[in-house]
């Protein structure tokens, strides 16, 4: 019988390679999610397109004057980045819950939080990184000076992964709920406020020619805190959602 021969192979002639370590596991999950995300590029590009849309609407509605634009630029950029993140969070765990991938990850003897961290990072690369890359281009149209553009971009680079990580907790909690988009936003938006305030404040400071290291250090500290805590909380929430 074919089947008997197959099972036999596993134990005898063909060598069984070692089970991957933690770093390989992280890379495998990250790579797979990136592949799937890029194939679903219409979903993936939503966040970036939304960011561009919001940022370009403000000058049309308010005023195209350089001094007005320069004043509102930090706030507009950061609000748009936060909303773009909220918009994309729905997709973080939904598909994995529906197609059974999460059930498989849950039954593996591997740390779930670690795998969710890899998934969240892949999600940020697909939805958050384009926002960071686009921000300096859009900032120039807002007449921001070079130094402020640099600080804005760097603050987004530090802050948007934190937004995705905080969002992963809410996404894990609501993955099993229908139409949870607004509920999800209400759960995670309050957690995101410190990042929003520090990010736009850093750019404000740069515009005023003041020292920006304070808010940037705080943003970095929040990123470290979110990286260490969010996956653990998301893992707990996923266990509930998958039941």
């Amino acid at each position: 019988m074919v089947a008997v021969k197959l099972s036999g192979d596993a134990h005898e002639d063909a060598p069984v390679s070692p089970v991957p370590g933690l770093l390989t596991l992280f890379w495998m999950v990250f790579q797979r999610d990136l592949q799937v995300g890029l194939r679903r590029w219409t979903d993936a590009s939503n966040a970036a397109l939304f960011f561009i849309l919001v940022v370009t609407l403000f000058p049309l509605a308010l005023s195209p004057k350089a001094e007005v634009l320069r004043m509102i630029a930090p706030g507009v950029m950061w609000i748009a980045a936060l909303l773009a993140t909220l918009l994309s969070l729905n997709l973080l765990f939904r598909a994995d819950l529906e197609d059974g991938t999460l059930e498989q990850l849950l039954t593996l003897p591997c740390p779930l939080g670690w795998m969710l961290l890899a998934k969240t990072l892949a999600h940020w690369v697909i939805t958050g990184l384009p926002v960071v890359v686009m921000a300096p281009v859009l900032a120039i149209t807002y007449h921001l000076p070079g130094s402020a553009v640099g600080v804005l971009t760097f603050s987004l680079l530090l802050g948007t992964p934190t937004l995705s990580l905080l969002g992963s907790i809410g996404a894990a909690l609501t993955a099993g709920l229908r139409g949870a988009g607004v509920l999800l936003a209400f759960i995670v938006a309050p957690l995101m406020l410190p990042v929003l305030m520090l990010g736009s404040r850093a750019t404000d400071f740069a515009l005023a020619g003041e020292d920006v290291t304070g808010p940037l250090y705080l943003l970095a500290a929040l990123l470290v805190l979110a990286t260490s805590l969010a996956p653990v909380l998301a893992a707990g929430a996923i266990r509930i959602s998958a039941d």
Partner: protein
Amino acid sequence: MGVLAGAGLTLWRGTTCLFEELSFVVPAGTALLIEGPNGAGKSSLLRVIAGLTQPESGSLTWRGGAFREQVRAGILRMAFSGHALALKAELSARANLKFFARLSGKSGHVADVLEATGLGSCADLEVRLLSAGQKRRAALARILLSNADLWLLDEPQTNLDAAGRRFVEAVIRGHVQQGGTAIVAAHQAMDLGSSIQSRLTLGDA
């Protein structure tokens, strides 16, 4: 003497009691067939064993030791196949299986298993283009690549043709004869041969 035993398992879903004080023993070298009508709790029992659902009470043991601890420590390797097939529609069957095969350390077997499950010709197509039966075969291939001692299969013959159903039975028989254990929820009659199967009937059937 059984390899896997459940004692006093009780599970409520909402206001319905699916099973109460359920105990069972799976003797070494056998497969346990869970039978019963739709809604009797077959899938739920499998999910309890897989650790996806917490029962209200009861305990599981594997070779006399605590079940969950041995799974967590990697001593007991377990493969679960539920209603959802855990296949990414955007990736090919081969890419889907490679991921799980690497997790179990059997990435060298992917091509052989694809061939054996009858997916050799469509292994590089995106899964969304496969038929329901082919997807089910891909899920079975994942189990074959899992290198697990304990198989938990929920309706593995769904959507399969007659040859496919016989193949599933042959695969499970092969696994059990190699010293493995399988628990299979099936509402269709499945026959593995009386010497290697025991039955557990849920519900009023």
